[in-house]
């Protein structure tokens, strides 16, 4: 079973991801901030990280850099608001696999996630 870590400061986004992905056979763990996410990663590897770009204490780019430094093989997918598409594109260069824009539908999320595991 694939393990997915969702890092987002917004409760409703975390729950949305959980409720979309769990029924599809994914194990979903959640973190409400970048540092909490990194702590969880210390405990054990995951197959995919869904990472919000805009967060209060540590923003998505920093978290991405940390993850890529410590666990270069970890798949990361960015979740972003429309206004930061450019930043999202930048994160692709930093090693993120893909990005989806908020608000997303369950289908969009699933398609994007499946795409990651297909390749």
């Amino acid at each position, binding site marked *: 079973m694939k393990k997915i870590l969702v890092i987002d400061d*917004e409760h*409703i*986004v975390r*729950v*949305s991801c959980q*409720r*979309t992905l769990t029924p599809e056979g994914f194990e979903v763990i959640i973190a409400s901030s970048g540092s909490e996410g990194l702590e969880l990663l210390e405990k054990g590897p995951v197959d995919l990280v869904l990472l919000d770009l*805009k967060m209060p204490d540590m923003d998505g780019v920093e978290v991405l850099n940390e993850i890529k430094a410590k666990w270069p093989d970890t798949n990361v997918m960015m979740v972003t*608001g*429309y*206004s930061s598409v*450019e930043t999202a594109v930048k994160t692709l260069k930093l090693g993120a696999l893909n990005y989806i824009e*908020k*608000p*997303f*539908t*369950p*289908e969009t*999320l699933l398609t994007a996630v499946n795409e990651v595991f297909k390749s």
Partner: protein
Amino acid sequence: MKNIFRDPRKSLAAKLIIAIGLLMVVGSFIFWFSILHKQEKDIMSIAVNYGGSFIDYVKRRTSFSMLTDHRAVIQQTLEDISMAEGVERVRIFDHDGNISYSTDRPSVGSSVDRDTLACRGCHVEAKSDFQLLSERKTWSVYKDSLGFTALKLVEPIRNEITCYTSDCHVHPQEQKILGFIEADMSLALLDKAKFKQGLALTAYVLVFFLAISVALGIILWKIVSKPVTELTLGMGKVAEGDFNYSVPIKSMDEIGVLTSTFNSMIKDIKAARDQRELWTQTLEAEIAKQTEEIQKTHASLLQTEKLASLGRMAAGVAHEINNPLTGVVTFSHLMLQRVPPDSLDAEDLKVIIEQADRCSKIIRNLLTFSRATPSEKGEINVNNVLSRTIYMVKNQEKFHNIKFNTSIDDTQFISDGDPSQFQQICLNMFLNAADAMNGRGEITVATRKITENGKNYVETEFTDTGSGIKQEDMEKLFEPFFTTKPVDKGTGLGLSVSHGIVKHLGGEIKVSSTVGKGTSFFVRLPLKEQRT
């Protein structure tokens, strides 16, 4: 003519007439006076000569009686002689002044004044008021009791042999002067003639003076006063501001020259004034233009500032809404999967999803609008982006009944900016056109290079055959959220976003529209280079 004499100090003609008149009067007086004087002298010398011969005559008539000492005869002779015209008095007196004979008989026996001419001739040194006619005769002129001029002649009777050898022995031989013959003759006729001459002279001078004055007056009025008055009138008119007035030129003399100089001066002044007025007008127009431009710039700055702050606020709000919206979208979808399709619940959930979609669309537009600054620097190949966009929309159902007229060639108009933003602008133009035409009509797209204020722009024209834009909507067109479309069809952000992008790139959007005929939008971007 009147005004010559109105005030002599103010009239050139009057001054001239008075001066010439005075000179004439003085001149004629001097002339006539010298003539009169000469005449008088001539007459006087004639009178004196005549008087001299008269005395000689008296002497000859009386000499015999003297020698024979017939005193009564002498007296009688004198009286006879004095009957002659002009003879006033004849006297004979001895050296002591005793009157021996006189036409004035009562004075015989009395003695003459010591002051009389006969005595003074020898006994007074000052001999200024009488003259010697010849060796023997003395004469002087004086005024008689009636005020007329009179001539007095005196001749001494010298002692001769015949005298002291005469039988009467009255005179001794040693006596040199025996006595005097004195004649007073009236020159009243001469006076009268002189008076008449004076009268004639005065009359002549007066008439001459009058005639000259009138003649001079007329001439001066014609050649000086009238033209000068006309010139003054002209100056008055000009002073009142009538620069079209021109004084008629009637002569070629100095006044004529003055008049024509004045006329040409007025012409020059008028030309200068017209020029100045033209400048003033141009300047006013220029100022009005500048003011309008400043106001426009100010308004546009205000607009930009308004848009910018609105954008910042919108971006913040949009971001926050995206998160709860994710929840709404996710959970309504999940629920839709659980409820039986075609059920009432499924329909309701679809409404929720639809409305959530709308929200997300609004937010997208808002964020685009707030993000008018291109963070992706790039090159816009105008014709390229346009062709791609047209190709894209042509395949959409909305554009199936719309004909595209494109005159886009291979020219590459390159402008700095984000191509995807330019595409967004074009897309909105096409969508707006399609809406305005209700999906049926023609869209004309053209690109061209234009130069304004020394700068090159690439202009893209979007013309449709739609409904057109009402005059009152024109100003609001670029305001965010201005739309005339139904709530679920337009957010009113398309043009304001486009405006923001184009402004930021240093370009502008212009509109021209006729209600019922169609609308043209012109999007201008600074032209970086043009490749063919």
